[in-house]
């Protein structure tokens, strides 16, 4: 069994991502939630979340993300924020902004929330509302203003893909105008719903390069005023990302139903038996569970990773991506140019390009319960 009986230095979790719910008023076709999310509709109770927060904090977790779905749909959010502050977390609310009133913003601030990240889908109302599947553009812009008004640091997050990549100059200008302290330009990572819609979302190489050049130039222009985080599109790289900073080293995700995940899509990996916080403590999960030990260290690696002199740098890439694209979770992330499976990435790029150039593109599959039930 990969690694599970090997003594290894286990570093404590630093980052806890609390996915409070899969409920969401938006229907973004690039959502990273599982396709069959309606199957996992059980939600942890307030007391469960408080216990999880306390236990993870005790181990050393300090950054806390409240995410989802839309975390605002949880009525106990202010209570959880207060608990997090009392424990000494730096808490981040990762929201669509939909349903976030000024009253709530004030209430969350008083409870101790540190930061609000608002997502916007595009720089125009028409495209934003189309991608979100909900009329939300005006609300989002108002929310961005209110977040600043009440003294929070504001991160504006825009997920980038073929439908909006041409708006890069307008997206940058919009972020500056809204007074964002940080702009996260997150090139879509092809998991969950994005994987299903990949042919329609993956930009061409020319589009990527042009957009990146524009973003990098803007970075200089707004230096000292707005920080731009550019999340690279790994399909166009020749080395994989150091996924989660290494399996079970830093990041702990808790799904709405309490399943603890070492990586976003780890629930889908065969034989991992990801543990649930209703059965085990965070310490047991982090230190002793099969799932969190599965890909710790590098004993599990196959060639070309095992003998690669860069293996400490990227840890072989993402296990979920390797599984999704090659069917083998032990294989090298096919993004790597040394991977014998690199052709699957090339095929994905070619297929998306063909789709981009064709006249009769398929419609996007939106993330909603009706569509999710088809995958359950």
């Amino acid at each position, binding site marked *: 069994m990969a690694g599970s009986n090997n003594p290894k230095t286990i570093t404590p979790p630093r980052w806890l991502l609390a996915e409070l719910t899969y409920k969401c008023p938006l229907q973004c076709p690039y959502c990273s939630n599982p396709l069959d999310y309606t199957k996992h509709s059980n939600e942890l109770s307030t007391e469960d979340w408080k216990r999880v927060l306390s236990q993870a904090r005790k181990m050393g977790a300090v950054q806390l993300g409240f995410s989802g779905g839309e975390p605002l749909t949880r009525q106990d959010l202010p209570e959880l924020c207060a608990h997090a502050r009392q424990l000494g977390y730096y808490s981040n609310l990762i929201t669509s902004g939909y349903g976030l009133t000024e009253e709530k913003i004030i209430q969350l601030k008083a409870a101790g929330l*540190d930061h609000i*990240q608002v997502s916007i889908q595009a720089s125009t109302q028409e495209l934003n509302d189309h991608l979100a599947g909900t009329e939300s553009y005006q609300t989002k812009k108002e929310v961005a203003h209110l977040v600043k008004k009440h003294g929070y640091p504001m991160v504006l997050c825009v997920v980038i893909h073929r439908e909006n990549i041409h708006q890069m100059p307008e997206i940058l200008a919009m972020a500056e105008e809204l007074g964002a302290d*940080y702009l996260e330009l997150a090139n879509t990572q092809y998991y969950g719903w994005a994987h299903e819609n990949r042919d329609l979302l993956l930009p061409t190489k020319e589009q990527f390069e042009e957009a990146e050049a524009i973003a990098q130039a803007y970075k200089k222009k707004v230096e000292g005023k707005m920080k731009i985080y550019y999340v690279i599109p790994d399909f166009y790289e020749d080395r994989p990302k150091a996924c989660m900073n290494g399996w079970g080293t830093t990041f702990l995700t808790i799904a709405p139903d309490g399943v603890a995940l070492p990586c976003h899509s780890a629930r889908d990996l065969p034989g991992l038996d990801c543990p649930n916080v209703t059965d085990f403590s965070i310490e047991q999960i982090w230190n002793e569970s099969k799932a969190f030990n599965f890909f710790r260290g590098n004993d599990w690696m196959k060639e070309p990773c095992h003998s690669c002199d860069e293996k400490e740098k990227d840890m072989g890439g993402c296990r979920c991506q390797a599984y999704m694209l090659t069917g083998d979770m032990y294989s090298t992330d096919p993004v790597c140019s040394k991977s014998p499976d690199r052709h699957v990435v090339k095929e994905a790029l070619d297929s998306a390009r063909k789709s981009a150039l064709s006249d009769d593109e398929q419609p996007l599959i939106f993330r909603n319960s009706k569509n999710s039930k088809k995958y359950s």
Partner: protein
Amino acid sequence: MTINPELTISFSPMHRLQWEEAQQKDVILYPEGMVELNQSSAEILKHCDGSRTLDQIVTALEEKFSTSGLKNDISSFLEDALKNGWIEQP
């Protein structure tokens, strides 16, 4: 961006400076990020309380540690801190 010696320096309200028991270190926390500080950096930042100018911070630290000649190190660290947005001036 440079430090104005006439003005006081305060720690940015957009960041949080905090002792982390698990790491036995002071850290700066900000949206989705963390910087670990060594002891001297943390000491300098704790003196950026909005009541002191650069020179006054230097004097306070030299007194506290019964030493002299800290000005260059402190001002170059604070220049970086200003660029990173950790501190601000009115």
